[in-house]
């Protein structure tokens, strides 16, 4: 059997398909809005025409490639291509800003390869016992996993209160739509477009992409006027040297290896899996590192940890799928569908009667992980050319991809509106030091937390209540203790260090993130940070009151989760409000009083206005393709006119750029991915 399997894996067709799959996957993963799930769903019919093991190998390679590809956009433009790449942005983008994009990309590839191989080894050796462990995670355990995830929000944000507020607002967003367990419509205001809730991808795109669209033209202006140094991709040193250094760096400390193990374990859990593995691993590595203050400022260990963990989840999400038919992630669910369409079924049969096919698939994944090194290196070189595209072109392209990516989720124009609103709020929030990562984490964890809690209540209702139920389950108790430990660790660390009479390095002087600038282009909107803090916290408190009033009409099980999360937001908003008064009484913290929030009003209004015009006026009347072309061209030329950099040749380039890009986007989404795009007079 072994020879047959090896023969299958190393057949020219299989190797060719793996390379093709990795390339497609890298591309798909790199684009926010294009997901591995979509690509795989399109490929299901392939299983009718080719041997199932080959088709599955191709699909597996795409999955591997997509999870790795997400890291490229995270590192180069600070936009995670998939939710699992959020942690990659923390150190990956700062490295790019320091001109070390190459090193970061190389590390992300190598870490992905190692993470993938480690995860795959577990899949080959101990699939069955691992799957049994996964099944032990019932509703209460999944609830506490999500609480653990929420506890991580604290360490993800510069400011404690702001991190918690944005995280809890993220959780609250998941309450919009039909309640999964209560069955009623919540916070939809009678709009059926909101019935399906806010998809994770729409949240990710809104919170990360829209602010970038608004910031990029300003960054360009700053570069041109010499305020910032130009962030170009400098290809320094020879590639082999960088590769060796990366490999040494991965092996020289435990960060990568530990992260891969964490990724493997977290990836097995249905639902939570891949999306939070990167963040969980990053947090643990940072917590136990010798010098945690370097994290978030371009530490290579951060990239190593995040990317090792998320690629390890690829194999581990297949563990419960192959053994019990319970997929660990949405792409694994599509693979399950492909297996079921063949009349096969998951379970022991796959490992006995169909062992050759199954092991060809698993072995194919192993080979895919190895081939990822050369393929990934070649492709990331190619993709990194986007850094040479001018910033307004990049902004226009991201704008179109955000819209079409959100439409691609399920063709719902309502999702696009929610995405834009979230993005606008995030842009304003970003100036006030709110970070998007906790909010996305909240959106990822919200449904898991709500389902876990409500189901636990339903199960324990007739037999003594929730708390005895939690305490009677060993894994739940362990998770509760671990969560408490996570929350209290910074304080424990402080105590230990104090006892040793050492200076705690973690505390740093509060500084303004956005220094007031000497050169002001266009109209800027300025407000003192402390005043802004007060306005925002009062607004939040009022919103909480409104939500409490709304929840009064919900069913019992539909109301619990919104009430709990809103209480969280309310509590933290009050603390935030109190916090904003402290500087008036404490002399030491005075500097922050002088901080000013600066927003570039024209780019804010043009950016948001044009995208709304594009989606809601142009698209339904003249169709997707034509309006996309007009939007891109308009945005590029508009920005150039405003900055007075428009020259004759530039116009032609812009037209060609817009035409090619809009047509290829249209073709990819409408004809390859079968997405329903709006049509009007034209297409």
């Amino acid at each position, binding site marked *: 059997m072994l020879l047959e399997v090896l023969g299958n894996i190393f057949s020219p067709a299989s190797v060719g398909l793996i390379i093709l799959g990795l390339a497609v996957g890298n591309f798909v993963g790199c684009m926010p809005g294009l997901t591995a799930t979509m690509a*795989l*769903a399109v490929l*299901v*019919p392939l299983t*009718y025409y080719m041997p199932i093991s080959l088709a599955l190998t191709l699909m597996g390679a795409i999955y591997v490639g997509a999870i790795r590809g997400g890291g490229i956009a995270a590192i180069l433009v600070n936009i995670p291509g998939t939710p699992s790449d959020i942690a990659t942005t923390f150190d990956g983008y700062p490295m790019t800003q320091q001109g070390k994009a190459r090193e970061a990309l190389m590390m992300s590839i190598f870490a992905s390869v190692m993470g993938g191989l480690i995860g795959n080894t577990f899949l080959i050796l101990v699939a069955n016992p691992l799957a049994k462990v996964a*099944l032990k*995670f*019932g509703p209460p355990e999944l609830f506490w996993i999500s609480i653990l995830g929420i506890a991580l929000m604290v360490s993800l944000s510069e400011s404690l209160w702001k991190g918690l507020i944005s995280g809890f607002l993220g959780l609250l967003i998941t309450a919009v739509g*039909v309640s*999964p*367990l*209560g*069955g*009623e*419509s919540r916070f*939809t205001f*009678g709009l*059926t477009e909101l*019935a*399906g*809730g806010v998809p994770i991808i729409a949240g990710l795109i809104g919170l990360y992409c829209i602010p970038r669209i608004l910031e990029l033209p300003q960054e360009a202006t700053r570069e041109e006027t010499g305020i910032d140094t130009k962030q170009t991709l400098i290809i320094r040193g020879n590639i082999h040297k960088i590769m060796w250094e990366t490999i040494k760096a991965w092996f020289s400390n435990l960060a990568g290896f530990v992260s891969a193990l964490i990724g493997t374990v977290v990836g097995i859990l*249905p639902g939570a899996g891949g999306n939070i593995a990167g963040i969980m691993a990053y947090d643990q590595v940072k917590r136990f590192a010798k010098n945690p203050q370097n994290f978030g400022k371009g530490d290579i260990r951060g990239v190593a940890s995040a990317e090792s963990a998320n690629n390890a989840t690829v194999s581990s999400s297949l563990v419960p799928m192959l053994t*019990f*038919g*319970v*997929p660990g992630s949405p792409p694994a*669910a*599509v693979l*399950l*569908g492909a297996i079921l*369409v063949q*009349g096969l*079924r*998951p*379970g*022991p049969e796959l490992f006995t009667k169909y062992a050759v096919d199954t092991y060809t698939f698993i072995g194919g994944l192993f080979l895919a992980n190895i081939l990822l090194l050369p393929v990934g290196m070649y492709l990331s070189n190619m993709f990194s050319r986007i850094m040479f595209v001018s910033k307004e072109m990049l902004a226009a392209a991201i704008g179109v991809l955000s819209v079409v990516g959100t439409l691609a989720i*399920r*063709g*719902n124009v309502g999702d696009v509106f929610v995405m834009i609103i979230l993005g606008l709020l995030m842009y304003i929030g970003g100036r006030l030091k709110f970070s998007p990562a906790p909010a996305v984490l909240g959106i990822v964890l919200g449904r898991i937390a709500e*389902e876990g809690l*409500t*189901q636990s209540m*339903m*199960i324990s*209702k*007739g*037999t003594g209540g929730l708390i005895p139920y939690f305490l009677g389950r060993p894994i739940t108790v362990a998770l509760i203790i671990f969560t408490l430990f996570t929350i209290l660790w910074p304080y424990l660390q402080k105590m230990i260090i104090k006892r040793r009479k050492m200076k705690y390095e973690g505390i740093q002087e509060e500084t303004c993130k956005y220094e007031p600038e000497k050169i002001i282009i266009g109209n800027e909107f300025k407000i003192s940070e402390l005043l802004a803090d007060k306005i925002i916290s009062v607004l939040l408190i009022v919103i909480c009151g409104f939500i409490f009033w709304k929840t009064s009409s919900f*069913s019992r099980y539909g109301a619990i989760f919104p009430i709990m999360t809103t209480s969280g937001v309310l509590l933290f908003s009050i603390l935030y409000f109190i916090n904003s008064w402290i500087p008036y009484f404490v002399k030491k913290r005075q500097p922050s009083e002088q901080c000013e929030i600066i927003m570039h009003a024209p780019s804010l209004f043009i950016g948001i206005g044009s995208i709304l015009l594009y989606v809601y006026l142009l698209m339904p009347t003249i*169709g997707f*393709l034509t309006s996309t072309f007009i939007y891109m061209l308009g945005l590029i030329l508009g920005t150039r006119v405003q900055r007075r950099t428009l020259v004759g040749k530039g116009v*032609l*380039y812009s037209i*060609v750029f817009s*035409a*090619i890009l809009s*047509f290829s986007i249209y073709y990819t989404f409408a004809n390859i991915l079968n997405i*329903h795009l709006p*049509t009007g007079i*034209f*297409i």
Partner: protein
Amino acid sequence: MNSRKRKLNTGSLVRLTFMMTVFSLATLISLPAQAADYPSKPFNYIVPFSPGGTTDLQARVFEKYWKDTFDQPIKVEYVTGAGGQVGWDALVDRKADGYTVAGNNLPHIIMQPIFRDTNFTTQDHIDGAVAGLVTDPEMITVLKDSPYKDIHDLVKAAKENPGAITAGVVGKFTGDWLGLKLFEDATDTEFAEVIFPGSRPTVAALLGGHIACMFGNTGDIKTLGPENVRTLAVGAKETPAVLDPFIDQIGAPTAHEKGIEWYAAIHRGLVTVPGTPKPIVDTLRNKVGKIITTDAYAQEMQKVGLPMLNRPGQEYAEFIEQRQDKILSVLKNMGYIEIENGEITVLKR
């Protein structure tokens, strides 16, 4: 340097002209098709549930045979969320030209418009009915090592501890949920209903021993693994043939055989956009009717494990109407709704 720039410019111009040609050609192609040459372009098949589920499997079975009959392929499109509502809401907004079809589920399309705000109505599904495809009975399944060896063990336990025996169902106001309510009604028991957002999490919870039993369908047996479970009762007149390969392992007697009058099922079918011109709907109904009566299709359905309903065209529309009357009276009897002059008021959720 100068000459190179000029070269780039001409190149761009050529590409630009090319793009313009493509644009105008593409516009021509998108001109609306006439009824006479229907179908003249690929179909969009909306799957309102996640990839890999039973509705998706049905679409994939059609994908194999559609082109032979229609000369045009189908493109499977996932429009998911809110227990299928997002997909059916999208369907009624699409062009009524006969090129969009969607999988639909009973009783979802009957109960959702009652209990929530929806864009679609049950009447839309009656008007656009293309064919009834699957009848999937509700089944009560427990783990092999469960103390409940027989349906009467479970009923007895539920009578002794009212509201304490946990029963997993997919979603509230769904076929599974209605199946549970009807079972409680038929046996005069009360279970602790534990609602899951989909069939996979329910399966995982049963396998992990977190719930005592689950109300599910035939498709769940494959993912649960027949070696792991026992089906205590099937809510149909006879156990469907798709379970034949597993019957030795899981048992699966009908509730009727066990002396319990409990009948509950989920039905799945195909629907097109309401308001589609009659000749087009007729073509669609006839051709789909042809596909579902072929042997190859029947074998494929047996292979992937979907029990057939086979109600082509108008028959399916009438079937939905019958089910609607039935479900409304059940909900009324259980005190969930009140009907006065055709107006439905929700009394409790």
